[in-house]
């Protein structure tokens, strides 16, 4: 009895130490994630001189000046928001729809060279955008589509990484008997996709939408090559403009621009984080 008590005491002590260690690690990791964002927000309220003087985690009083400076530029952040929204929402809609459609076809139908097709998609995931961008640019130039949103939206119909994600999701969540049942109920193949599969795959679609939206919103590389007129600049390009002043750079305004570019993404995460996590777990385990 005596030894039983001491054994349980030593166990609970060990558990306490283990839990404390876990919490310390989690707090450190959280700080690592939060501090850079916090510094951006703090610096958005500081002047260039204050920022050059060193780090601070306490907000200052220059937010108004920085805000006025941003709005005094010929390319406003609001126009950047509008352009980013058009590109991100359109490309996300296309990515999600066509990735799901492709993944559904791979998952549900048997056709010749299905596995080869699947492997090609997997290989495409591994090829960085930078490798093919010059060819893509030349092609768009030939089509007269440079400085238009089309090259930033239309390629979203073929997004290998999204197809890969969608296929992995459907592999674990798709109940094939439902498709058979819908066929017997009288549905055509597209009706099954739209009215049975898509509503059922909502968590996956949602997660894919968020990933696609964030990546498109934050994309700097391709818009910087394709968009030449400032009126069409997306948020990351507008922020970059703030940094490239000929005489001096208003660092506080740059940080404010960066903060503003983060804002929509943060808002989306705050409101939708539950569904994102739910979506990821739903895709991982069949319920």
């Amino acid at each position, binding site marked *: 009895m005596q030894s039983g008590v001491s054994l349980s005491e030593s166990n609970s002590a060990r558990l306490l130490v283990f839990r404390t260690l876990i919490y310390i690690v989690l707090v450190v990791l959280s700080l690592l994630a939060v501090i850079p964002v916090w510094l951006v927000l703090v610096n958005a309220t500081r002047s260039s001189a204050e920022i050059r003087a060193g780090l601070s985690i306490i907000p200052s009083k220059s937010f108004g000046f920085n805000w006025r400076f941003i709005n005094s530029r010929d390319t406003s952040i609001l126009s950047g928001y509008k352009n980013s929204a058009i590109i991100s929402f359109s490309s996300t809609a296309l990515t999600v729809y066509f990735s799901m459609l492709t993944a559904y076809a791979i998952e549900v139908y048997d056709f010749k060279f299905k596995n080869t097709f699947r492997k090609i998609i997997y290989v495409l995931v591994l090829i960085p955008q930078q490798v093919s961008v010059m060819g893509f640019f030349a092609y768009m130039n030939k089509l007269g589509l440079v400085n238009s949103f089309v090259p930033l939206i239309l390629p979203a119909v073929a997004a290998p990484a999204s197809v890969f994600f969608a296929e992995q999701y459907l592999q674990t969540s798709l109940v094939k*008997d*439902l498709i*058979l049942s*819908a*066929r*017997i109920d*009288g*549905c055509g193949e597209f009706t099954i996709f739209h009215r049975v599969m898509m509503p059922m795959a909502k968590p996956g679609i949602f997660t894919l939408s968020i990933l696609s939206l964030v990546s498109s919103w934050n994309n700097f590389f391709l818009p910087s090559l394709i968009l030449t007129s400032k009126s069409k600049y997306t948020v990351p390009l507008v922020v970059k403009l703030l940094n490239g002043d000929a005489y001096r750079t208003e660092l506080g305004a740059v940080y404010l621009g960066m903060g503003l570019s983060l804002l929509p993404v943060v808002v989306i995460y705050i409101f939708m984080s539950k569904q994102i996590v739910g979506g990821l777990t739903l895709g991982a385990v069949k319920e």
Partner: protein
Amino acid sequence: MASLSLQHVYKKYDGGVVAVSDFNLEIADKEFVILVGPSGCGKSTTLRMIAGLEDITEGEIYIDNRIVNDVLPKDRDIAMVFQNYALYPHMTVFENMAFGLKIRKTPKDEIKRRVSEAAKILEIEHLLQRKPKALSGGQRQRVALGRAIVRDPKVFLMDEPLSNLDAKLRVQMRVEITKLHQRLQTTIIYVTHDQTEAMTMGTRIVVMKDGFIQQVDAPSELYANPVNTFVAGFIGMPPMNFINALVAVEGDDVNIVFENFTIKLPERYAVPEVMEQDGKEVIFGVRPEAITDETTYVGQHPESAFSADVDVVEMLGAETYLYVTVNGALPLTARVDPTTSQSRVGEVVDLAIDANRVHIFDKDTEQSIIS
């Protein structure tokens, strides 16, 4: 409601696997036909070929005298109930049941009427606004049945619809489906691996093995006169006892000899097919209920009596199963009356076979010689 005809139907997969071989069956209007057999026997494949969910490699399938080989599932006028219910999780029970009608552009009032009617039959009216996740297994299965009923199809196809339910609910739903068949007077093809479901629900049973039909008959006929050892062993629980035995003919008498015991068979077994087996080894089939430990019966039938060691006694309430061994080598199962049985584990008991209810099978072909 419709008749069905399957003529020389084959299903061969790439790589040479033959799932169904030369399947021939005529199903009359309003029949309740059960396809039964062990896993991999081709019963579900056959059902899916009838539904149009699997292509037919060879042969013809007719529904109401119309060949449907190349007709899409939606145009075959069939409804199917799946083992896992296959309810649309994002729709309510009402929407699930109405979906097929909606797709077929049935007027709204008609949809409402039919769904209400089916819900009433299945007693699920109070569940119509619920989503499938808020239903129990039995309720889900009722909804799946309701979805099929509202369509008023020519043929109902059911693919092991009760397999996911617990034992008690399965018995209850078995009765419900039988009642439903009587009420709707419709053609049902029902797939199961459970021989109890097959025996209790079907008007005719198709026993399958390795893609081949073994026997097609009414349940009672299948039980009384199985055509081979497979059917004899598959139908009936506990399964039939198979004993390697010798046929010994003495004058007009036919005797079966096994493990130093000789069982004299009644006159009706003295037919040429049996007589010509004289001196040959056969498979002697005895159902557990044809073996008794009732003292009076054993005393009155010394010509079919033998003794055995009792290994296990299973008392199930209404009946008792005795697991015995004859001569320490031949295991047998007997179904006896618990109110009269005196058998105890470890004892040697005297048993007798009801010789009017035995079966003899050919040792090589395993086909029935006489039942």
